[in-house]
């Protein structure tokens, strides 16, 4: 790993050059080799200690290509990696006279048998995995006989309705994270710092409701206005007409006190009426009681022998 570190800034140390120098000539008669990843040289770092990187990618001038080397640490060393500045420039920008012709081949039109081979290989891979996962092929899955001596045991698999809903509910994602080294990131960073306007644009105001205020906080008028308009549009203090607002609130307050007074008066009147009625009823009851008392006295005086007799016998 230490050999992969770049050369210190002001040192005379020259990093070891691996491989061969490839000279590029710009004359049109020479052959230009495409700058594909596969064309860079890969060498074995076999005599290195165990925990160091085993495959080193080299640039054309023989120095180590750190991007490609690090990007393929855990992977196949021949894996393509886009790690250079050239990869960030589009082909049409690099080659302005590039004609747009990239035909897609299918099995019938492909000039060689690479597509066919690819399909066959994939089918073979899939078949191998399926065989491993399903255990048996479909034919001998149904019944299998085990014969041991005289006894013969018939083992048959339980047939299931393929349309039954799944028995197990999957809840947790067991597959997260990448198994490979993260790829080199080829994107422009935003060079401009975020301005205050940008930050304000992203600021989300706290939610205010005109209906619920459980904690009983005082909410300023502009916030109430904003909430009344569905949280849209900014309403500053200037937008609120304070004189009118105070007039409205005064009027509301006055109306409220008037209403309360009226209510009080009505309640007093009702109370008085009630008391009067009560008094009348009491008088009536008193009179009734008086009358009944006098009547009973008369009755007692008139014929009381029977009563006496019953009492003494």
């Amino acid at each position, binding site marked *: 790993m230490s050999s992969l570190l770049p050369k210190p800034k002001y040192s005379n140390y020259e990093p070891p050059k691996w491989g*061969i120098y490839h000279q590029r000539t710009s004359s*049109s*008669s020479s*052959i*230009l080799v*495409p700058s*594909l990843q596969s*064309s860079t*040289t890969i060498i074995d770092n076999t005599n290195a200690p165990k925990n160091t990187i085993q495959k080193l990618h080299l640039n054309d001038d023989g120095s180590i290509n750190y991007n490609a080397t690090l990007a393929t640490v855990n*992977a*196949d060393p021949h*894996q393509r990696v*886009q790690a250079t500045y050239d*990869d*960030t*420039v*589009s*082909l*049409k*920008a690099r*080659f*302005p*006279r*590039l004609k*747009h*012709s*990239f*035909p*897609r*081949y299918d*099995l019938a039109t492909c*000039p*060689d048998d*690479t*597509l066919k*081979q*690819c*399909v066959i290989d*994939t089918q073979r*891979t899939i078949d191998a*995995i*399926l065989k491993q*996962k*399903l255990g048996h092929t479909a034919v001998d899955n149904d019944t299998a006989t085990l014969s041991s001596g005289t006894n013969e045991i018939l083992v048959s698999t339980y047939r299931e309705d*393929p*349309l039954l*809903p*799944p028995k197990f509910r*999957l809840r947790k*994602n067991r*597959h997260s*994270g*990448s*198994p*490979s080294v993260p*790829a*080199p990131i*080829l*994107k*422009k960073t935003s060079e401009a710092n975020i301005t205050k306007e940008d930050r304000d644009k992203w600021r989300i105001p706290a939610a205010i409701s005109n209906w619920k205020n459980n904690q009983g906080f005082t909410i300023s008028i502009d916030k109430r206005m904003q909430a009344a308009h569905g949280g849209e549009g900014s309403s500053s203090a200037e937008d609120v007409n304070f004189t009118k607002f105070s007039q409205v609130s005064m009027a509301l307050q006055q109306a409220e006190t008037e209403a309360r007074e009226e209510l009080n008066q009505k309640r007093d009147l009702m109370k008085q009426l009630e008391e009067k009625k009560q008094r009348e009823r009491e008088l009536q009851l008193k009179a009734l009681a008086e009358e009944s008392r006098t009547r009973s006295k008369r009755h007692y005086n008139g014929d009381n022998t029977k009563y006496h007799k019953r009492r003494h016998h």
Partner: protein
Amino acid sequence: MMIKKLAGHRKDLLPPTDELSEATYKSVRLDYLTRLPSSQGSSGDIDTATSLVADVNIDEDADEVANINTDMIPSSNDIQWELQRVMASAHDGWVRSVAMDPVTNDWFVTGGSDAAIKVWDLTTLKLKAVISGHILGVRSLAVSPRYPYLFSGSEDKTVRCWDLERTHAPEGCQIRDYHGHVGGIYTMSLHPELDLLFTGGRDQVIRVWDIRSRTEVMTLLGHSSDITSIESQIGDPQIISSSMDSTIRLWDLRKQSTLLTLTHHTKSIRLMKLHPKEATMCSGDSNGNFKQWLSSPGGELLSEFTSTNELSRIINSVSINPNNVLFAGFDDGTLEFYNYVSGKLIQRTKSIPSPGSRDSAIYDSTFDMSGSRLITCEGDKSIKIWKEVE
């Protein structure tokens, strides 16, 4: 070494003096990047490349060299598009996904947030069938070109297979389900040759299903956020996926591993689509950036351009026409049509939301197989059909 060998090969193939400019010369060489469908290692790779280059006829005339295959691709320059028909309240919720019948081009299916899948006739725009069974919104649909099957993935974490020949059967037409996802399914793709289904979504992995046995054959790990689109092709890379972690991954299906990670995008990619005829693809991120790539194992960046739409930068949907029209649908309902080759903006319109909804985000879109109609699925519960202006 290898390079020297290659140089030696090339010297024999080319005439000793050529007056091609370096750029054209390089573009000729680029052809073999796309003509190389599979690559196993490194050295064998280069050998096949040189053998392929041998049959490219290099002439004195530079234009002819580059025009080898251009006659295959018709170019429709700057044709404007107009709204043909609005299917208002086609679903009882957002219309989240659409898939065209690849064989007859007669009908299309849409899936909505109301958990229903609806089959529509393309010409009459009449409802042919309603397929119910999902519990949550249907986010992805795929119609098999070889079987009468429809595959659907939903936010309720289920992938289901429907038999389209029995859509009116009283017992329902679901014939299979693929159990294993632990998050909503946002996208799916069918392998063009093999019986494989690729699904991905909220749980950050791509699952490869054997369609017949319902077995999860492989689990492809690597993305660190939701997977937003999966595309599949015959040669390597057989699967290409884009993710909310703003990367695109090219996968080697045989080794079950990532072939290449493309980290050029700065924001999450909501959609990536393969060109129906070319070996290229286009991805759009949430910052209004489009990037075109070669869908070869090298994954070279072909070109990039940015939308100038000021209102919304979030590209929700991308569709590519066989006639090289690139459609982009934005989150605020803006539609943009680009020339796929030059990246030039042809037209920008805004979809008018149906009465009752404020905005109509374009959630999914597809061209029909001929490329003359565009179907957009919108947030105002409507499906809109667009056609070229005559």
